[in-house]
């Protein structure tokens, strides 16, 4: 039975690389090559560094990252590997044990396993100084891979049920986005910590890994090298027991998945009947523009992808500015005043593929005469209504918390609004000029779909540059005012910034409206998901 799973997995992997669209194939091959290159690089590093001073810590930290990655990544990729989901096999007459054995075998086939063998093997070699240590090291490598694999399968299968319902997927999306958003601030904090503590900090982190279950085997190798066989054997035994226990849990989860009812996602949340949210009714213009803006406001909250993107923009914007203060010289800095600007910039970046996110629903705009202008302006209005108050608040709070001079705060407010306008101008045009399709309800929160590969990336890069370029004059003014200590200039930005942003947004809207009216059907075609 395991043999059939192996053949299935091999066939799926091969098909992914030989058939499928050009982009899929390219991504698959790139991924494979990248994995190989990194794997060989790490392995070479370990082999070369054998016996040298920091190699123990390096191995442990690598094992820690490996374990975390092996556990977490399948959760994010759930759904892209069909052999992972037991539901696919629910109609076959298989016992749970057969299913578990089969999935274990097939899970160990593929690129990631090659990577694991390369790196874990080299790590084992790097720690070896005698035959006995070598034997233990090999056992450790195998055990680490096993416990990670079984653990990740147990985790995926247990959580898998909730990932099948719509609400579960929505939540997973949000969690993944927040996770992604916290990577950079986390990295900066770790860097700051290491800067302070130096190599002692590195050793402490390495020690931390020996406490984790997937760190036990390699910790055992270190024990053996130091001559203490007792703790080593205990660690190895404990890992083995844990692996068996996880396998049993996995079996139970499989049974539950196969026999349990599908988690129903159609619990149908009831919403009030009004399209226009109450809090914004006085501000919104009546008619088509107001309708589009109202729809957009609803979507920014209700569509999990947009909500995740909006929250990510918020966190990343604040995080980047806050991180510069942490890694800077002393405590909180005046640049916190400009936290709002970063958020404004990233918020508008989210709009660069608005039509792609809406998917083929844009057909209603095409089918309604004269609605292109309303669509563009309504979208812009919605972003302004959401982002402007947030950025203003951040500027004020940042100025107060960072202890920046008032003039800086004033210029920050002006710059925020300029950034919003500039961003809207660039991304509005981008959204019409270079839309691309995004899968409808992805199991993988990070799926971006076929896209069109290189040309799309190039377009997005151009859009990003355009966004910056339009903002440059205002940024230059602020720099001039800050560096030259000219408060008058900074106060002027408070007035000039919003005007600049408004003008830019209008120009962008006009260009985009013309384009949408001329090439509406092409936009619809571009955002239709392939296959």
């Amino acid at each position, binding site marked *: 039975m395991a043999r059939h799973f192996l053949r299935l997995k091999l066939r799926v992997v091969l098909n992914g690389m030989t058939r499928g669209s050009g982009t899929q194939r390219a991504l698959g091959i790139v991924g494979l090559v990248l994995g190989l290159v990194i794997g060989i690089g790490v392995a070479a590093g370990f082999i070369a560094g054998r016996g040298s001073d920091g190699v123990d810590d390096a191995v442990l930290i690598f094992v820690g990252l490996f374990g975390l990655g092996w556990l977490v990544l399948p959760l994010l990729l759930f759904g892209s590997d069909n052999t992972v989901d037991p539901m696919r096999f629910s109609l076959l007459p298989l016992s749970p044990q057969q299913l578990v054995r089969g999935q274990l075998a097939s899970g160990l086939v593929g690129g990631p396993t090659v990577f694991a063998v390369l790196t874990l093997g080299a790590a084992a070699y790097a720690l070896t100084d005698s035959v006995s240590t070598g034997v233990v090291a090999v056992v450790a490598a195998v055990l680490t891979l096993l416990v990670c694999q079984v653990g990740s399968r147990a985790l995926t299968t247990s959580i898998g049920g909730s990932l099948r319902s719509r609400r579960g997927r929505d939540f997973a999306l949000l969690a993944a986005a927040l996770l992604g958003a916290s990577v950079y601030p986390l990295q900066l904090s770790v860097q700051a910590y290491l800067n302070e503590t130096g190599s002692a900090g590195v050793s402490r982190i390495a020690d931390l890994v020996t406490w984790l279950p997937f760190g036990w085997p390699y910790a055992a190798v270190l024990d053996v090298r130091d001559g203490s066989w007792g703790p080593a054997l205990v660690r190895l035994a404990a890992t083995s027991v844990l692996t068996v226990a996880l396998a049993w849990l996995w079996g139970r989860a499989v049974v539950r998945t196969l026999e349990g009812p599908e988690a129903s996602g159609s619990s149908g949340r009831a919403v009030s009947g009004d399209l226009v949210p109450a809090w914004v009714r006085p501000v919104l213009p009546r008619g088509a523009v107001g309708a589009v803006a109202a729809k957009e406001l609803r979507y920014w909250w209700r569509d999990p992808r947009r909500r995740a993107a909006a929250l990510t923009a918020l966190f990343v914007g604040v995080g980047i500015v806050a991180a510069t203060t942490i890694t800077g010289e002393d405590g909180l800095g005046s640049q916190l005043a400009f936290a709002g600007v970063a958020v404004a910039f990233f918020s508008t970046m989210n709009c660069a593929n608005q039509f792609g996110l809406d998917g083929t629903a844009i*057909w209603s705009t095409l089918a309604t005469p004269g609605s292109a202008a309303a669509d563009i302006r309504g979208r812009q209005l919605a972003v302004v209504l959401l982002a402007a108050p947030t950025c203003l608040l951040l500027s004020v709070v940042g100025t107060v918390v960072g202890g920046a001079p008032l003039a800086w705060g004033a210029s920050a407010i002006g710059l925020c609004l300029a950034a919003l306008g500039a961003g809207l101008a660039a991304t509005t045009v981008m959204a019409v000029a270079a839309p691309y399709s995004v899968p409808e309800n992805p199991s993988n929160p990070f799926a971006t779909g076929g896209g069109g590969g290189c040309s799309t990336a190039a377009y997005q890069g151009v859009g990003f540059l355009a966004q910056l370029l339009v903002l440059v004059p205002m940024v230059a003014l602020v720099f001039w005012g800050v560096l030259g200590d000219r408060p008058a200039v900074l106060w002027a930005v408070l007035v000039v910034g919003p005007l600049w942003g408004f003008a830019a947004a209008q120009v962008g809207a006009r260009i985009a409206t013309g384009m949408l009216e001329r090439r509406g059907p092409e936009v619809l075609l571009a955002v239709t998901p392939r296959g």
Partner: protein
Amino acid sequence: MTVPATDPPALALRGLRKTFGQTVAVDHVDLDVPRGSFFGLVGPNGAGKTTTLSMATGLLRPDAGSAFIDGHDVWGSGPAEAKRRVGILPDGQRLFDRLSGRELLTYAGLLRRMEPAVIAQRSAELLDVLDLTDAGSTLVIDYSAGMRKKIGLAAALLHSPRLLVLDEPFEAVDPVSGGAIRTILQRYVEAGGTVIFSSHVMELVERLCDQVAVIAAGRVLAAGAIDDVRSGRSLEDVFVALVGGRRDTGEGLSWLGTSFA
């Protein structure tokens, strides 16, 4: 060929052609949908029905040919006039499904620059007739496939168009909802509207339509009044004869039913 200026057909397609890469999806389609008719477009999967209807309504740009709604050129000088007069229910296109049913209708109406009071009254009636009043507060993404067709139909009817273009409106719709839709469409045609819809289901087309066109491999194989096209046989027989394809799997599969697992 042009479209007569006086009393033009509700929908006129002239020489429409569309190619996707190597595949010719629609190969020179000419069609006339008379005003006040109930027109059925039948064909197998991949015949080009959806492509044709998309090109006819301004959603997909044809490689060649033109489409006229009530005499107004969809792809030329008068797309706004043409689009004002038509209500569309496309197949396989998303709706704004993060809105509730009622919100979706409000949005469609406001986009058409209708008065909010009119929208509210018509939405309530449409939801009631289509038995969607209870689901009016639920997000469309939680609707079943049949409910989605119904709310899409409601959005197409909201601005009281002269022509309805419906792509597979009865697919995945239960018999009760299907009956409600049929009744609405029949009343609409009796009041002077024109309906063109595509379907696989021959019995339905025979029952409802007075005009029919058979399309396969991107070409119109037969078109006209349904009695003329049928000429005594059933529409299914005519369809199979025109389209070809295998029938009668009387031989083979000898193990089926004799050696059970």
